[in-house]
């Protein structure tokens, strides 16, 4: 089981340690630092590092390494999942998960870690339950606590923890009863030089914000549920009902949660909403290269493509770029060789383009590798897979809730090779 946890910041200092069993000396982290030194990029540190007596399993999030120490055979995914859960909880409690935030709330952090893991066994990781045990710090509460001397530790046993629906606390009351669902899809795609799709897949999630009184029982049905053949559910979803009728039936947790995530695989046809015309070329012997990019909308079902951001890692031999965008702004960092172009919205009538020349370092030979172009964008009111919610019903309570559903498509890892 998880023995200890060390938090290491970007400059390689341990700034927090927590031991659930006997104390493990922080020198064990030396093996981690060795690996860190070997890695060319911060994110290239291998997740599992063996040492003579322990294993170090780490995740990197928000520029903090969370290094767990284990001694016996433990499923690594279990540890990694738990570490991510720790990060999520910190973020949930403190708004951001940064070294400063953790240090500011070190006592709460400690209490949380103690509550989340007992002797290496996860104890309470559901945000709903944790918040009943340890109240998140708010400015108001801090002030009140200082005046009244009360604490942010709950006095009550978390009621939900042992009920049949451990994810929901009892006695929830709202004056405005509302349930919002966001269908968010991310396209991961690799497009080759000629513009044809090598692979494209969609990672979709339905995030919910449910503020309903009592114990509501919801059902959500889709127009085209057959799209969802690869899904992961929140534990609240009744799996049998889904298997039989393809209807999501559940008693929701209170507040924000992820109802389901799904994956539309590369075997289905995935619509590609943007295209890129590019011409990046270097000539042998010349210190100049040509650079041209044009973006255009493709299969967008008539919706606008917004917040477009193009970035590309230019070859190391590039000294500078002299480009002119038809819209938006571009920057080129001569140190990291990162070119980024903030395009904004794509106007189908007047396609955005970025043209000009790039200069190579004197004496540098023609670069071997071709830069890959990374594109980010957003399309509102569209789920690119075509997924549509049919209806949302509520049972078990008498009031009429306010319901809302929003769709959005984003680029995930959307890459165009040149």
């Amino acid at each position: 089981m998880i023995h200890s946890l060390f938090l290491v910041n970007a400059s390689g200092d341990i700034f927090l340690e927590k031991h659930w069993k006997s104390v493990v000396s922080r020198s064990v982290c030396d093996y981690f630092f060795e690996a860190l030194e070997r890695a060319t990029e911060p994110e290239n540190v291998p997740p599992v590092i063996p040492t003579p007596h322990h294993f170090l399993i780490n995740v990197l999030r928000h520029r903090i390494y969370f290094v767990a120490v284990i001694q016996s055979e433990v499923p690594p995914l279990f540890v990694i999942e738990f570490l991510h859960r720790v990060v999520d909880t910190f973020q949930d409690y403190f708004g951001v998960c940064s070294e400063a935030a953790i240090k500011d709330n070190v006592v709460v952090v400690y209490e949380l870690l103690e509550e989340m893991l007992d002797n290496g066994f996860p104890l309470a990781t559901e945000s709903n339950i944790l918040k009943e045990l340890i109240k998140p710090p708010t400015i108001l509460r801090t002030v009140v606590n200082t005046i009244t001397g009360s604490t942010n530790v709950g006095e009550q046993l978390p009621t939900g923890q042992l009920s049949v629906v451990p994810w929901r606390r009892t006695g929830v009351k709202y004056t405005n009863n509302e349930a919002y669902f966001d269908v968010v899809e991310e396209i991961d795609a690799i497009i080759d030089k000629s513009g044809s799709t090598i692979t494209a897949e969609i990672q979709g999630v339905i995030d919910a914000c449910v503020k309903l009184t009592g114990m509501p029982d919801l059902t959500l049905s889709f127009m085209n549920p057959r799209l969802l053949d690869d899904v992961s559910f929140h534990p609240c979803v009744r799996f049998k009902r889904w298997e039989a009728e393809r209807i999501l039936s559940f008693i929701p947790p209170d507040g924000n949660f992820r109802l389901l995530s799904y994956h539309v695989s590369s075997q289905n046809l995935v619509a590609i909403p943007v295209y890129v015309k590019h011409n990046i070329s270097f000539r042998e012997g010349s210190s100049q290269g040509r650079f041209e990019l044009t973006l255009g909308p493709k299969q967008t079902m008539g919706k606008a493509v917004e917040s477009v951001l193009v970035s590309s890692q230019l070859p190391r031999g590039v000294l500078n770029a002299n480009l002119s965008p038809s819209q938006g702004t571009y920057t080129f960092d001569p140190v990291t060789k990162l070119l980024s172009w903030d395009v904004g919205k794509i106007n189908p009538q007047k396609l955005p383009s970025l043209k000009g020349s790039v200069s190579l370092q004197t004496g540098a030979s023609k670069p071997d590798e071709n830069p890959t172009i990374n594109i980010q964008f957003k399309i509102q009111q569209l789920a690119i897979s075509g997924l549509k919610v049919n209806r949302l019903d509520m049972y078990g309570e008498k009031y009429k809730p306010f319901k809302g559903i929003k769709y959005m498509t984003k680029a995930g890892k959307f890459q165009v090779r040149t």
Partner: protein
Amino acid sequence: MTDSKYFTTTKKGEIFELKAELNSDKKEKKKEAVKKVIASMTVGKDVSALFPDVVNCMQTDNLELKKLVYLYLMNYAKSQPDMAIMAVNTFVKDCEDLNPLIRALAVRTMGCIRVDKITEYLCEPLRKCLKDEDPYVRKTAAVCVAKLHDINAQLVEDQGFLDTLKDLISDSNPMVVANAVAALSEIAESHPNSNLLDLNPQTINKLLTALNECTEWGQIFILDCLASYLPRDDRESQSICERVTPRLSHANSAVVLSAVKVLMKFMEMLPKDLDYYGTLLKKLAPPLVTLLSAEPELQYVALRNINLIVQKRPEILKHEMKVFFVKYNDPIYVKLEKLDIMIRLASQANIAQVLAELKEYATEVDVDFVRKAVRAIGRCAIKVEQSAERCVSTLLDLIQTKVNYVVQEAIVVIKDIFRKYPNKYESVIATLCENLDSLDEPEARAAMIWIVGEYAERIDNADELLESFLEGFHDESTQVQLQLLTAIVKLFLKKPTETQELVQQVLSLATQDSDNPDLRDRGYIYWRLLSTDPVAAKEVVLAEKPLISEETDLIEPTLLEELICHIGTLASVYHKPPSAFVEGSRGVQHKRLPPRAGSGESTESPDVGQSGPSEAPPAVIPSQGDLLGDLLNLDLAPPTATVPSVQPSMQMGAMDLLGGGLDSLMGDESDTMGAGLGAAPAAMPASLGSAPAVGGGLGDLFDLGGGVGMPTGSYVAPKTVWLLAMKAKGLEISGTFARRGGIIQMDLSLTNKAMSVMTDFAIQFNRNSFGLAPAGPLQVLTPLSPNQTIDVSLPLSTSGPVMKMEPLNNLQVAVKNNIDVFYFSCQYPLSLLFVEDGKMDRQVFLATWKDIPNDNEAQFQIKDIHLNSDVASNKLQGSNIFTIAKRTVEGQDMLYQSVKLTNGIWVLAEMRIQTGNPNYTVNGNKET
């Protein structure tokens, strides 16, 4: 106002200041002070000096303060055990608090205080909490048992907590069940052979029910526990699979992977023609693909496991090639894993896509990745024959890029392609030669030299090329030097006229100027070969080489099976069995996949069954004639006395005769013989001599009949020490084997040479050649006190699992007691396995004798036996070696004998005894 203020005090008098604040009358000030102490603790400052002051704050009704003090206690109690006692009373009182939260908190914290004195006081409160009415308290208490066990295992067992924990598996609350399973699993890890998690259909049913309702973490523990269960038949296996499949849709990837493990394992039992089998295969793909869209760390672990799954069941993911395509901003460890899986999935159907991708990767920035991509192209060529041509042209394209490391990798893999498809792509050699100068890595240089040497006859200037390498011979790495030597010799054999000077040069460089023994010896061998018999040299050096195999990096099947049982664990990440690296898992049992139902096969692994006739090498029968001979000596002294004296000459005991001999005799019938005896061990280790119990095999049979003991019983060797006390924390085990009334028995003497009492003995065997297994538990009823010795007789059966051992009669034994588990191996005399009904009918004997092919025959002599044939015959009968017939020809007595082994193998023998000559000649024959 934030907690960061607690970090700012770095004044020298900090501790004193805190002390004063801790003893303040104001509650608020106290709490602030404790918070400061905790903050210092988190960054590793030593604040243990404040122990008494902090403990004083414990008796409070403020829950937060209490929690903070508990946090402090857990950290420092170990260093202040005497002080920690002060806290005990409060703990005990808190364990009876009205608020279940406080009861649970108290029992939880108490378990974390790793001080022996405290644990004594913990027992009573813990017992109460395990039976608490509130499930929250019960589940906390369950974990506490595991904590306590970690500190004092004996105490937990004495107090009967393990039984209570087992009862909790049937608890009504799924959370309690999950925690009980988790705790038991952890305890079981340090007690590999204890039957803690006694899984039967009833408990399995309870676990499956709890699985649906407990938290995600609990599900992981339960699934892992389920995976260690062996279903009775395919029906049960299917029903478990059906109830586990919904877990594949869980949001927690660890749950998904544990579910995959259970399914992969139990699937093995389902008949392949079952519809459900196909459905299950289809269901496995989507969750695995989904794991790849998670965070990179999760992806990495998932990919390592998918690598195993793809090797075991490639059909699951064969259509999912695209998800393994590399994104340029994947971390390097993900990229490399994806690449590996791409090659494993490569087939004729998708090779075009794969190659296009690989070519793309070869132009990336990351050097390591580019190299691996180039290598992957070569592996594709070797794996998918139809694609070889395309791969070669892709590699040539890459060579044209002139990127140094790409060219070098390409040359290394082209060499392998030549080795797989000789005489097919030699047209590219010219292009390769152009790049000769840019090669600076030894592996690439060696590969290039190999190509030049191998195809010297087609390269006009081969001698010039090789000569150019020769100039800096001493600066090259060994790899290159060796390759250069061979290549020039090849060249010389192909074009002897022009290259004589060159070959002499390289030979003298290798033999005279080098101090590398490998190089020097290879040089001498070539030199001698060339000078004595050039024709032979040609045959040797230019011999046709075997083609290289398709995939070189597949995991060996038995290891793969074991790893499949460990999906999701560290073992699966490292692709090594858990025993290879996990500390503290001394007794990890090797897990195997269950046998498929209805196939009628035993659990033997495929590689054993395959050892066909061609593989069995000719019998290596030891030439020492002293095989049986020695043993037949007519010493009338009791066996104990004789053994040491015979020892030196017993190097190749009877065991050898029957082990090595039998084995090879049976080579061509191994299919009917079951696992165990497939391939013949070429030679028995000489260590046999040091184990008199073994050496004593057949021979000692004679000893005994001579005078002492039971004239009709088989011979029993004296006990020897198998396990030294110093190696086993004071437990000494000596023993021997005996066959009494048709029952095989292991006689053990257990001696306690330690200072404390030993209890809870148990024994287990590893799989072995003849399936020996304990027929009952080890009966040590009374605790073994210091300096006491107990003799036990353990009946053995031969129905255990079978695995060929080396030597054949080796038996690996694990003995457990309350202190630890110990391992030793011993060797049993083969005569143990001769059954009582081994007397063959005369007619059958005659027919069989003729039918046995000559290959199955072996002959050897036994020297110095002064017995006449009748006496010898009688003696042998005592050990179930039966004389079927006797014939006298020209003053020689011919005895025809039969022996039957427990696994149904018959051995027939002809023993020739010449009156007056102390040497016996034995002709051994075997059939099944």
